[in-house]
Structure formats: C-alpha cells, structure tokens
C-alpha cells in the first residue's frame, strides 16, 4: 500500500537512507513523499535536484571563461563547468542550450560536465526534478512515446530542464505537464498514449 508520508512521521522499515533521518534509534521521514510499506521505499513528491555523477543534464551556457571553459546554468542552485581538453575543444556562445553528463560532483552547487552536445534552436521548459524519472519512464518508454507521437525532438535533463524542437510542441508540452501532475498515478503511459492520439 502506498500512502503519503509527512516530514517527522516515523517509518517502520526503510529501503535506503534517502528521504529519512535517524534520531534516538528511530527512523523518520524528512520529506513529503509516497511511502510503500511493502518494501520500505520513499518516493519524494517534491524537492530540489541533487546532482549525481553520470546523470544527463540540460543547461544553458551562461559564461565563457579562459581557454574555452564554460559555465552552464543547470538549476537555481547548481552550476555546471565545461573544461575543454587537449584533444576536444568546444565552442559555445552564451545562451546556447547544451546536453551533457556529469563527470564529477564538486559540491551541491558546482559540477563538472563532460561530453557536451549543443542542442540548437528550440524551446526549454522546466519540470519538477522529482517527476523526471516518470517523464522518462521505464527504459525510456514514456519519452520515446511522446517523441514518436508528436514528432518532436526532446531532450530531458535530470535537473528538470526539457528541451524540445520540431513537431507538435504544444501537444508535447501538455503531455509533459500532465505527467508532472499525475506522476503518482498508475497506468500513466496508456493515458498519455490516448491523449496524444487525440482520443
């Protein structure tokens, strides 16, 4: 059974330490989330993005430094840094939208990016970082479905920025918004499929 859990509510069993804290030998939730009492998982419903190594992100180049280093805005609190190597040099302009993966997390507010790829013209929307896994879906099913049915090119960053271009943008955005809103419900892939097919 899944139920909503509040900060300060004690949990009997936990799968991981994420979303919980210990005090006096007892475990409590520290966030608002969905608690699954069969396996002890807590899925957070809200919250800021915490960068992790290897994650794919979407960002906007904000500053050009010396020797082709770049600063990239990833979220209100996190900045990415791109450092050109000896063999690969990058050329970006301020305002370019890029897709990259996180090579190293220096701190909550600063990460080093690798393999940046310019995304070109397009539109950026922001979704809640906690809903990103649902937007991507298991094995990319959800995002592939949206891309196929709307003929959009979409890039989803774990930081909550989504870049879109071509195709039916309006439909794609409303699908993304609907997933964000209904992330905690089941059978969502089917619902979105119906919606995109205009049923």
């Amino acid at each position: 059974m899944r139920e909503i859990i509040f900060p300060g509510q004690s949990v009997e069993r936990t799968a991981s330490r994420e979303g919980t804290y210990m005090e006096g030998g007892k475990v409590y939730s520290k966030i608002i989330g969905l608690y699954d009492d069969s396996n002890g998982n807590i899925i957070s419903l809200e919250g800021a993005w915490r960068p992790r190594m290897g994650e794919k992100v979407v960002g906007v180049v904000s500053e050009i430094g010396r020797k082709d280093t770049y600063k990239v805005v990833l979220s209100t609190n996190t900045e990415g840094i791109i450092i050109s190597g000896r063999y690969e040099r990058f050329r970006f302009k301020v305002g370019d939208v890029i897709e990259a993966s996180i090579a190293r997390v220096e701190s909550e507010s600063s990460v080093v990016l690798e393999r940046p790829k310019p995304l070109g013209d397009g539109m950026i929307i922001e979704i809640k970082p906690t809903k990103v896994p649902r937007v991507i879906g298991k094995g990319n099913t959800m995002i592939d479905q949206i891309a196929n049915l709307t003929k959009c090119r979409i890039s989803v960053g774990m930081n909550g920025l989504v870049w879109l271009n071509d195709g039916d943008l309006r439909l794609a955005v409303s699908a993304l918004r609907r997933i964000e809103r209904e992330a905690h419900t089941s059978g969502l892939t089917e619902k979105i499929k119906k919606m995109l097919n205009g049923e």
Partner: protein
Amino acid sequence: MASAKNKPELLKNGKRLDGRDLMELRPIRIEAGVIKNADGSAYLEWGNNRVIAAVYGPMEAQPKHSADPARAVIKCRYQMAPFSGLADHGRTGPNRRATEISKVTREAFENVVLLNEFPGTEINVYIEILQSDGGTRAAGITAASVALANAGIPMKDMIYAVSFGKIGDKLILDLNMLEDNYSDCDMPMAISPKSGDILLLQMDGNLTMEELKTGIQQVINAGKTISAAQQDALKRFYTEKQQAGSGEGRSEAETTG
C-alpha cells in the same frame, strides 16, 4: 493588554465573545500549493485570519556574504498587507513588529529544517497576512510549515503554532484580536509535535507556573487538530490535483539557442 480602561467583557456565561468554549480553536482551513511560481506555498484561513505563505529555494544565497558555507540560511519575511488590519493593529511595511515576528519565525524553523544538506544556499519564506484577527504569527508559522513541506525541503518535523492566554483567572486557547488586546496574558507558542519541543514562546502578561504548565499541555493537545489540518491540506493537494485542466495557468519559459 490589560491597560485599557474601557475593557469589554470577554467572557459571558463561560463562553467567549465569538461563542467559543475556553479551550476551543477557531476553525482552520488550509490549502497547499496555491502559488504556481513558488517552490511551495500554502493558504490558510484560521478564524478570520487569512494568510499566504510561499517558499522559494534552496537557491544560491544573495548577497553572497549572507551565505554560510556549512549550512543553508533561512530568510523569513512576515508582512501584513495594508488592508489586513482591524483598526490600528495591522500596519504594513518593515516595522519593528514585522521584523521581530520574521526573526522568531525564522528561528523556529531553523530548529527543524535540515540546513546542513544545502550548504551555501538560502531558503526564502514569505508570510503575507491578508486579513488579521489575532494570532497571526501562529497562523503564519502554521502556514509556512505546510509551504516548506510542499516545497520538498527536508525537515525533521512539520511544526505548528497557536496562542494561549488568560482572562481573569480563566485560561483560554487561540486568542482572537479582542482577546489578544484586552486579556491578561497572551502567549503564542510553536511546537514540534513529534518531540514536543517548544520552538517559540513569547509572553505578553503574566501566568503562574501552574498556569504555564497547563498552557503548554493545552497547546500540545490542540496540536493534534492543527497538524491534522496541515496534513490534510497536503494530502488533498497530491490526490486532487490530477483533476485540474491541462497545462493552464503555468507560463512556459522559452529560450532559443
């Protein structure tokens, strides 16, 4: 306070001016997630009080010198809207009273928010009083607590606040404006319901030691109702919002490369 000469009769036949029993709370209604642009928000109606709380962050602390490299800082602004007051009670702007309430609210939350998880950042808590009828700092804290949870900010507990007071020798709970002004004691308290810790206690007037102990107990008992209202608001937000229309009311940030 008790200084007024033409003091109204606050108790009649054991009932209070608005017909409540001595230990009866005013009706509370909370709604979570009312402001789309904020990371978390709440609207609260508590008797005649109307409060909006919004939370932004954690984000990079501005100005930079206000950042703490070891933990997040909470910045709290309590403010009364210019139209909120009854008579001379609610003045708007950064006056002494608003500064004080902002400070005590911030300190209450510093005890429960897990600040060390976001070093160098700030969490902004805005409390706006739209209509006031006594006990607005308690209402503000209760609403801000829901807003913080709605923003997904990790914290040890969802705190609440309520005031306690005395008319003559009778103890009362949840004072309204008139009681606040003319009673013999007004004591707002903020409580962390999980541990029973007292995070805010201010007292205007006098209580005996015994009365103080009764007061704390009554505030803790009343907390069950208030906490239930807070949790109910969040529950409703996460279970009902799926019925809303598609994509409306939300502006899309657009950039071109």
